[in-house]
């Protein structure tokens, strides 16, 4: 509690992924005004891009839908998409936050009818699918997008097609003149829920992610397995669209490695177990090899691990692969030493999935905003700035459940700063 009344009782949540949504809705349902800033055009963050969660193998969109329903019903939540924090001034209970909003070129009166999409030819990379497929330059980020509004890609602006798209909208919802804008918010507490980025697999040069089409990352695997992904849920080899017959899942791709991320990203072991389950569900005769250093299946997740390991088509190989070579047919060849048998192996695969780790988004994008971070870029409590908190993976490498715990706790901390 403050010595004096806080000047603003509003809580700002930066980031609209599962953690940010949770902090926001838990605080709002307790009676506080909350503002969510989201960098992309839609809420949902990384989990919206996941096919399923371990260990229940349920769909993240299921929980998101409930959260979106809660937000829809709750007038105390305000959302700004395509918005980031440009500056923060003030102190606990009394912050002025400058928000930078990049143009969506689509006004709030968009009905999501989709006429603009049908009027445009230009294709752009689709970040929701990690660029695995293209999309039109006027697009709905995905079918669960919230808010349900279209977006015009900046590449379209200034082209002839842009006018065509504008004309196609019968509701006059397209504003090609929209410019980047800034505005100020007055808030009493700030929760950073900026989440994570997958570690750039191309930087793990021995694994030749940039050279081998059939070497993909775990987040790309999620898109391949998702019904609304580039392959409509079929896990296929990117090189030729064929069904993979043998697949390697490589743990600690970039994590626990002083050349890359020194910490353990916690989620990758179980995520790979989940990928083994995806594969086995789709292809009865697929062979899955999991290369690992230590399998970290804590608490009752151990049971999920046991189930996967007991599958005779899944092989556990205790080895951090040294290298992925380019095979004779341009297929990935995983090379290394099996540390339990001392066998030096060199195995060709149809598909290799790198279990890349989580890197805090905040550290990557950097900023002029002063928050306290540890050496890895995770945001930690700052004794000098007591109205600023962090939640979810912005605070440390956590799984979804732990992120939600962390986000719920952050909601209380934020309330303490403003009540």
């Amino acid at each position: 509690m403050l010595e004096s009344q806080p000047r603003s009782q509003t809580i700002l949540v930066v980031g609209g992924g599962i953690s940010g949504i949770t902090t926001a809705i838990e605080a709002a349902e307790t009676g506080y005004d909350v503002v969510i800033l989201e960098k992309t055009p839609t809420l949902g963050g990384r989990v919206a891009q996941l096919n399923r969660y371990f260990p229940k193998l349920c769909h993240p969109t299921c929980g998101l839908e409930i959260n979106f329903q809660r937000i829809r019903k709750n007038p105390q939540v305000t959302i700004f998409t395509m918005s980031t924090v440009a500056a923060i001034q003030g102190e606990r209970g009394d912050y002025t936050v400058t928000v930078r909003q990049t143009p969506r070129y689509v006004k709030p009166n968009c009905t999501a009818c989709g006429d603009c999409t049908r009027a445009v030819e230009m294709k752009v990379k689709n970040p929701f699918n990690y660029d695995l497929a293209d999309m039109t330059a006027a697009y709905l980020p995905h079918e669960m997008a919230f808010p349900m509004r279209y977006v015009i890609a900046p590449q379209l602006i200034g082209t002839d097609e842009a006018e065509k798209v504008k004309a196609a909208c019968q509701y006059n919802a397209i504003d090609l003149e929209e410019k980047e804008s800034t505005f100020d918010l007055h808030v009493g507490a700030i929760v950073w829920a900026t989440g994570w980025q997958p570690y750039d697999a191309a930087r793990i040069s021995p694994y030749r992610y940039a050279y081998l089409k059939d070497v993909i990352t775990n987040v790309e695997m999620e898109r391949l397995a998702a019904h609304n992904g580039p392959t409509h849920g079929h896990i296929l080899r990117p090189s030729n669209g064929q069904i993979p017959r043998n697949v390697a899942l490589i743990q600690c791709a970039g994590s626990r490695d002083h050349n890359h991320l020194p910490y353990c990203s916690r989620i990758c072991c179980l995520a790979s177990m989940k990928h083994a389950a995806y594969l086995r569900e789709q292809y009865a005769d697929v062979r899955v090899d999991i290369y690992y250093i230590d399998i970290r299946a804590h608490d009752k997740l151990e049971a999920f691990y046991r189930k996967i390991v007991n599958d005779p088509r899944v092989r556990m190989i205790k080895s951090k692969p040294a290298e992925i070579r380019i095979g004779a047919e341009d297929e990935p060849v995983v090379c290394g030493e099996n540390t339990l048998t001392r066998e030096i192996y060199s195995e060709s695969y149809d598909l290799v999935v790198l279990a890349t780790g989580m890197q805090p988004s905040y550290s990557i994008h950097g900023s002029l905003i002063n928050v306290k971070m540890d050496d890895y870029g995770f945001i930690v409590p700052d004794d000098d700035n007591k109205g600023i908190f962090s939640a979810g993976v912005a605070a440390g490498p956590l799984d979804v459940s732990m992120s939600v715990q962390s986000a719920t706790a952050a909601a209380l901390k934020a309330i303490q700063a403003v009540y």
Partner: protein
Amino acid sequence: MTYISPLPTRKYDLSFARWVHRHIDGGDRLAMCMQCGVCSGSCPLGTTMDNGPRKTFMMIRAGMKDEVLQSDTLWNCVSCYNCVVRCPRDVPVAYILHELATVAVREGYAQARTAETNKFVKGFTWSYKIFGRTDERLVSLFYYFQDGFASGLKKLLAFRHIALGFLKVGRLPFGMPHSLRHRRELRKILTAATKIEAQPAKGGR
């Protein structure tokens, strides 16, 4: 030499591991090994080696001094440095193997005495000690004949066309070995270095 590594009396006796930790350049980082296998898996001669670096490191922890110093792993390192750049725990793998080889030589382990690499190295060292530079002709001759004349001749015959080729194109020059002008300076420095090296505590990486 005034210092010799201790021989552990039982399994997982740390005396040898600790010695390596203190006396080997980079040995302090050996403790960081988490047995992931990247080093052995990266090794061009990984299939040729008996133990490979990873297992060697575990054996050091297990106090298996004799097995480590007799291992052919120390002599099959091609110095490609793949292990060094890839090690997730920043263990200077190749450097440690080189140092262990030095220990094996110094302590008279059989493998070290017979390893071909070591014989070559002997010649190499001999050359730069005498002349300050490596003269590949002399190194080769030294190498070929150190096990005696007969075996030397045999080896020389095997490599003779190579040597002849070099001579022909001028890549093995005739004449006296190149030598330093300030050989005394070099000798003083080497003597001082050897003296400090022999003291138990030393710096380095």
